[in-house]
């Protein structure tokens, strides 16, 4: 093995936050190297430094033994480093080839040579098994395919080191498998991969070595074959972590949220939810399992009132919600944690405190004598930050400065602190580390014991099985079947998710 890349004593502070506090990292040629760590541990920051997006306050980077100054991503690409971000950076109305052409060097000013690009894209797709139509518009591609476009984009520029920041958080299990094949092909071809993930199972499956970060420092680098999920979890959190926990049994209360034969369309005007009926009872967690993009998002949006209902009826405690605005639904006790936390859930330029307060901003005690009660707003934020262990120096920090997982905690905390009677929660642990995930699941259990009716929508089947009392499988906007976790074989669930088998309820 030879060392391809070394980062030495990297320090990066954001004000008082020590995002990276003297991190050493070495990457061998031809390996798949995982970076593991809790939310806010500094993983993305470290990779952004490698990619030239941030400048380290201290430390050096060596490539093939030579010190380099990576002042911007262009330099990084020249050195063979390509990065695919947690949040994609594609231009939706453009085609795949057009997206790849953006910022490409050696282009003529007056004419865009798309044919060449398209050919080369096809070549790369073939070589690595990255199926993509170069002429397709990005806006029409699924998230998984968009990610392939991002990967092709960096491969096109000749990347030898591929950095992937939580690539699997947005993928279906099938897409994850395909991605892993691509990565393996890439490594066989002489490439090297740095892979950030919170999913220990995946790390055990695909990587050669793992570097664990905690609070901006490196804990250790280990060979994957010499370690276990349990040990990794312990290194990451700094204490024993239960990877499995007992479901809390509660008695079922009354019917709270009820859908009868609901139909609605997606943003493109195509039918997305086709006659869905179910009831959620107080004190239960009803899981909606299914491959992403089968109407889950529209289902959640139609319940919360963001999407318009075409026909059918949604009711909360017997009251018809159809004609109510999202706000009126909040008022009578509906909570909603959308999956698009940056687009819908949070106002990222606003402070954490304001994001936590804004839903009630016109009510006492958030308001006093007609003015904002800053003292209360800050105090409230302080308490929630402590309770949910949001990693931040203060409540005044804008949400955009938080790491992905901590943003999710803020959103969840706000929705739960409203004391809703029914909570619709979509992909609650996407991008969360196992500690935070455990915390959120426990919070859900606690709410359930209080008698809240919880509808959990998640494409992470493990999560659904672990947390829900009852599960419905959704496929192309219809319910394929219902089951109690543990009582039917996983293969059967898979067939329902794929739309092959429909089980009468």
């Amino acid at each position, binding site marked *: 093995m030879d060392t391809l890349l070394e980062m030495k004593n990297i320090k990066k502070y954001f004000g008082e936050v020590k995002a990276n506090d003297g991190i050493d990292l070495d990457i061998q040629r031809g390996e798949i190297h995982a970076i593991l760590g809790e939310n806010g541990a500094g993983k993305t920051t470290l990779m952004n430094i490698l990619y030239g997006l941030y400048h380290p306050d201290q430390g050096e980077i060596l490539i093939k033994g030579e010190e380099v100054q990576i002042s911007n991503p262009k330099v990084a690409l020249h050195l063979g480093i390509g990065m695919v971000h947690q949040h994609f950076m594609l231009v939706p109305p453009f085609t795949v080839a057009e997206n790849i052409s953006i910022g490409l060097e050696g282009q003529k000013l007056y004419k865009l040579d798309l044919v060449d690009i398209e050919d080369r894209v096809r070549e790369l797709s073939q070589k690595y098994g990255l199926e993509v139509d170069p002429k397709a518009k990005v806006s029409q591609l699924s998230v998984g395919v968009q990610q392939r476009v991002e990967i092709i984009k960096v491969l096109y520029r000749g990347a030898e080191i591929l950095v992937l920041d939580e690539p699997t958080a947005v993928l279906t299990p099938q897409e994850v498998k395909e991605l892993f094949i691509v990565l393996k092909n890439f490594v066989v071809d002489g490439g090297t991969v740095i892979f950030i993930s919170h999913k220990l199972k995946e790390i055990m499956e695909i990587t050669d070595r793992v570097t664990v970060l905690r609070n901006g420092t490196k804990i250790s680098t280990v060979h994957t074959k010499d370690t276990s999920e349990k040990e990794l979890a312990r290194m990451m959190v700094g204490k024993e972590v239960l990877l499995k926990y007992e479901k809390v049994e509660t008695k079922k209360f009354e019917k709270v949220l009820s859908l009868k034969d609901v139909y609605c369309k997606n943003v493109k005007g195509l039918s997305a939810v086709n006659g869905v009926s179910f009831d959620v009872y107080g004190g239960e967690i009803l899981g909606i399992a299914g491959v992403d993009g089968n109407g889950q998002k529209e289902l959640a949006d139609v319940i*919360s009132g*963001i999407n318009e209902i075409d026909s059918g009826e949604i009711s909360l405690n017997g009251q018809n919600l159809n004609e109510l*605005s*999202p*706000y009126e639904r*909040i*008022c009578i006790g509906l909570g*909603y944690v*959308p999956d698009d936390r940056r*687009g*819908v*859930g*949070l*106002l*990222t*330029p*606003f402070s954490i405190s*304001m994001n936590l307060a*804004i*839903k009630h*901003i*016109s009510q006492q005690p*958030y*308001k006093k004598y*007609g*003015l*904002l009660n*800053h003292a209360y707003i800050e105090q409230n934020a302080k308490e929630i930050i402590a309770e949910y262990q949001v990693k931040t120096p203060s409540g*005044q920090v804008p949400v955009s400065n938080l790491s992905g997982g901590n943003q999710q905690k803020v959103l969840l905390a706000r929705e739960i602190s409203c004391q809703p009677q029914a909570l619709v929660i979509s992909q609650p642990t996407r991008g969360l580390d196992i500690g935070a995930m455990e915390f959120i699941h426990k919070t859900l259990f606690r709410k359930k014991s209080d008698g809240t009716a919880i509808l959990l929508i998640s494409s992470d089947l493990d999560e659904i099985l672990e947390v829900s009392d009852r599960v419905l499988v959704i496929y192309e906007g219809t319910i394929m079947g219902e089951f109690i976790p543990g009582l039917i074989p996983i293969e059967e669930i898979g067939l329902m998710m794929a739309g092959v088998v429909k089980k009468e309820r």
Partner: protein
Amino acid sequence: MEIPSEVRKLAIAAVPPIVAIVLAFLLGSILIFAVGVSPIVAYRSMLDGAFGNIKSFTEVLVKMYPLLLAGLGISIAFTAGAISVGAEGQILMGGLATAFVGTYLGFLPAPLLIPISIMAGFLAGAVWGIIPGYLFAKKGLSVVINTIMLNYIAHYLVNFFINGPFKEPGGYYPQSPRISENAYWPSIIPGTRLHIGIFVALVAVICVYILMKHTPLGVKISSVGVNQKASRYMGIKVEKMIIIALAFSGGLAGIAGAGEIAGIHHRVLSGFSSNYGWDAIAVALLGKLHPFGIVLSALFWAALRVGANNMQRVTQIPVSLVVTIQALTIFFVLISEMWQHKGKLASVTHTFLKRKSIS
């Protein structure tokens, strides 16, 4: 702990405008040099012209008054994500309303009539803001286009009145009758044109500051400007907020118009606003949409306007050079906004574009 961070934020926000101003003046000095005048002499004469004596300084404050009020108004609209360029028309409407009140209610005593004139200006301007607000909120029509249109309508409406029903009886010029002296806004320093309006404007600064930074309404207005979709989901009535923001925006510009009539001209003349409404857009941007920033930028802008005249007298450099410097300043401010990426304008423009693509 809290106050220093607030101060620090303000200080950081002030850097780009200051850099922009310095750059604009540097480029301006090249132009001055090119016409064969020493930039130092030119800028000195400008400074003298604006701050050289009490009299010139009061002139600066006189010009600052409408810029400050209209700029404050624009900042509220922009913060809500509504790109309003309607201040000019709102100033005209506010002035017209004040003239009506000052003429037809002239029998009222001054302590009553002056507040009424302020109110009239506010209401007329607010109506001129609510119209595009309503069209945008309910029909999705562009605020930019509609505010431009309303500027024309206001312009021709004023001309219609002062040529027709509201023309000075027996007068020759197209102008309204002189308003009752009871409606005159008293001058602060006798012998100058400086009237009490500057205090009205400063009170407005405090009010806007409190509104935008310390009331639930202000938070909701900014929230709509940041992300309409998220705001709606959080229970904020987006349409209502946009209409309210544009109403305040127009109302403040309307008060600017009221002061121009009741404090300066004492009657309606064609084009009495002299483009304050357009300059106020620049003032709002240069002030980073922050009430205190707008005080400084309005002062700066007014000083440039007044100083330019003196520079022209002393050095024969045309006033248009100052317009060039003003334009360069705004140009650099916008560049720095783009460069900073976190700036208010960037996000405001962003939501604006997004909204258009949705509706």
